[in-house]
């Protein structure tokens, strides 16, 4: 990562609309060896995860170490992790669109794609966790003949609605945003590729009528997606907070989870966009200005998380509830089963992001990349810490035990990362990973005289 191209401040814009087209379309040309190697690694990891899942289907849930009392293990931890990753995309694409934030333009398309693929990954886990995958349709609300009616008072049912709505709205928002850019790809390609892009662009022509209604619809999509940023992870947090399990039953969970989700999502955007920017030579479109803005989002949400971690302990102590006190003190005991998980979480989510308080540190690409990776690890550990420690150390001491994931669970976790990376890598080479039309909106329009009075 050369630092000479790593300038701060708003990046230099392309000089013309045509230049913006050519810069982004260039990425679609023949893939490099490094790209193909990364794709092969991702596919191989995904296939390994699939093979581990096959083992679970063939031999039963016994190959995973989830058992009483830790009935929720790596699968639910990873489910919450991927849902959280998806948050930053909608935050950047919807909320920052509504507040007209300028730094959003360069990074929002890749962030939206990340959201869609992260939620696709998260959606695998309830099915994986179910064991009997052929009965996964039981998740959905339908009046059936077995008298098994859905209980809409259950937070798990709310979660089905929240995640499926989030995925649908995010996917629509992502695709609608891509349509005019896919039309550009169509007009710059030939043969079968042109036909495929032609179909995907829905025959977009860029007429005044299309732009008028499209922009209105896009604004409404942003307004509809914005409350989902706050609601989805709040609903996920209620999966825990509505239970009376010590360490879960807390009213601070919704804001605590939302802040954590935005922290992990912004860190993941840095992790994905940093190598992409250098590999594709997009410093003209994404530079320190964007990464620094993302780092500032991380600092804010890390501070909120640090406060939430402290408040959990304060509330545990102040409540004088012996079970609450016991679980929180046990979590923080370095010699206890999961003491290492607690301190790793605190280091990754509270201590490591603090280096970004120094401007030089949040402008250094290596520091940005490494700290973002640390946050990603920390956010997975946070969910592990919350879910596993509370279940493994529940009310009845006779049931306490030490949960450690089996090789099948680790394999499926790795496979989910492979699945996510495969989708993201395919997206980079087939769809506009930088929003061409919105980049054009930031370029002064070509004029012969003046736009005064027009």
């Amino acid at each position, binding site marked *: 990562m050369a630092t000479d191209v790593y300038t701060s401040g708003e990046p230099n814009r392309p000089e013309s609309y045509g230049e913006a087209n050519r810069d982004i379309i260039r990425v679609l040309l023949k893939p490099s060896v490094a790209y193909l190697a990364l794709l092969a690694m991702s596919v191989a990891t995904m296939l390994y995860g699939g093979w581990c899942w096959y083992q679970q289907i063939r031999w039963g849930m016994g190959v995973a170490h989830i058992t009483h009392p830790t009935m929720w293990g790596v699968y639910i931890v990873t489910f919450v992790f991927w849902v959280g990753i998806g948050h930053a995309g909608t935050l950047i694409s919807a909320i920052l669109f509504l507040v007209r934030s300028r730094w959003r333009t360069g990074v929002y398309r890749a962030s939206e794609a990340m959201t869609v693929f992260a939620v696709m990954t998260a959606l695998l886990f309830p099915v994986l966790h179910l064991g009997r995958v052929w009965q996964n349709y039981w998740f959905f609300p339908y009046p059936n003949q077995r008298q098994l009616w859905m209980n*809409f008072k259950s937070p798990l049912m709310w979660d089905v609605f*929240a995640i499926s*709505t989030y995925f*649908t709205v995010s996917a629509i928002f992502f695709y609608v945003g891509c349509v*005019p850019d896919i039309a550009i790809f169509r007009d710059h390609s030939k043969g079968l590729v042109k036909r495929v892009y032609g179909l995907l662009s829905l025959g977009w022509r860029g007429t*005044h009528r299309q732009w008028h*209604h499209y922009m209105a619809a896009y604004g409404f999509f942003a307004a*509809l997606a914005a409350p989902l940023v706050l609601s989805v992870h709040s609903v996920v947090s209620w999966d825990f907070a509505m239970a009376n399990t010590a360490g879960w039953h807390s009213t601070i969970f919704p804001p605590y989870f939302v802040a954590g989700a935005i922290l992990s999502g912004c860190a993941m955007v840095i992790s994905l966009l940093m190598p992409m920017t250098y590999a594709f030579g997009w410093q003209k479109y994404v530079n320190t200005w964007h990464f620094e803005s993302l780092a500032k989002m991380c600092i804010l949400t890390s501070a909120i998380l640090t406060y939430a971690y402290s408040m959990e302990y304060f509330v545990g102590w102040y409540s004088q509830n012996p079970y609450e006190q016991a679980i929180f003190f046990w979590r923080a005991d370095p010699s206890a089963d999961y003491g290492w998980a607690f301190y790793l979480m605190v280091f990754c989510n509270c201590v490591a992001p603090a280096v970004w308080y120094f401007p030089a540190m949040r402008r250094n690409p290596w520091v940005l990349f490494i700290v973002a990776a640390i946050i990603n690890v920390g956010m997975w550990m946070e969910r592990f810490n919350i879910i596993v420690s509370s279940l493994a150390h529940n009310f009845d001491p006779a049931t306490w035990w030490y949960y450690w994931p089996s090789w099948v669970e680790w394999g499926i976790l790795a496979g989910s990362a492979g699945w996510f990376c495969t989708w993201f890598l395919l997206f980079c080479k087939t769809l506009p990973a930088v929003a061409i039309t919105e980049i054009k909106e930031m370029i002064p329009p*070509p004029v012969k005289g003046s736009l005064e009075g027009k």
Partner: protein
Amino acid sequence: MSATAVAAAPPVRIKAIYEHLDCLLTGIDRLKKAGIEGWTVMAPLPRHEIEEIIYEGRPSPVRWWTLTGGITGLTIGLLLTSLTAAQWPMILPGGKPVVALVPYAVVMFECTILGGALFTTLGAIVHCGLPGFFLDAAIQDPRVTDASFGIVFTHAPESDRQRITEILTGAGAVEVTTGDDTIYEVPNHA
């Protein structure tokens, strides 16, 4: 040529390409002042100047689709939860209601957002005229998705051809073509 023969002449396509936004706006303005209708503007990006001169502040009807979708979603969310519970009227301890609106608010909220988004998509498809595969071939020009602007007439009266061409050229069009010459393919960049 008799008046009947002129009226029977088939309509023609006319396309003007502009490289500058101010010239395009001048062209639109002059067409409006001349009372000529039936034109379509093509642009590589949404520009508020174009929207203002054409729509003069009139909002898109897509908003009504969003509102209808939101209300429909909310209603479905309310009915799905309440009627499901009413079909299974368990006697709950502590006097808790069978139809409990507070927990159902979550499902109702999600259905409202989902309904709003789906109806907005439908509204955008209807009003944008998508899929646009069957639009006149002249209303597609690779130069427009690249960097230029355009004004297209797909059915201009033959009698107005001269007048329209003069207006479009006078506004600063870099190219004005008529008939089948309006269908254009640029060399491939890929």
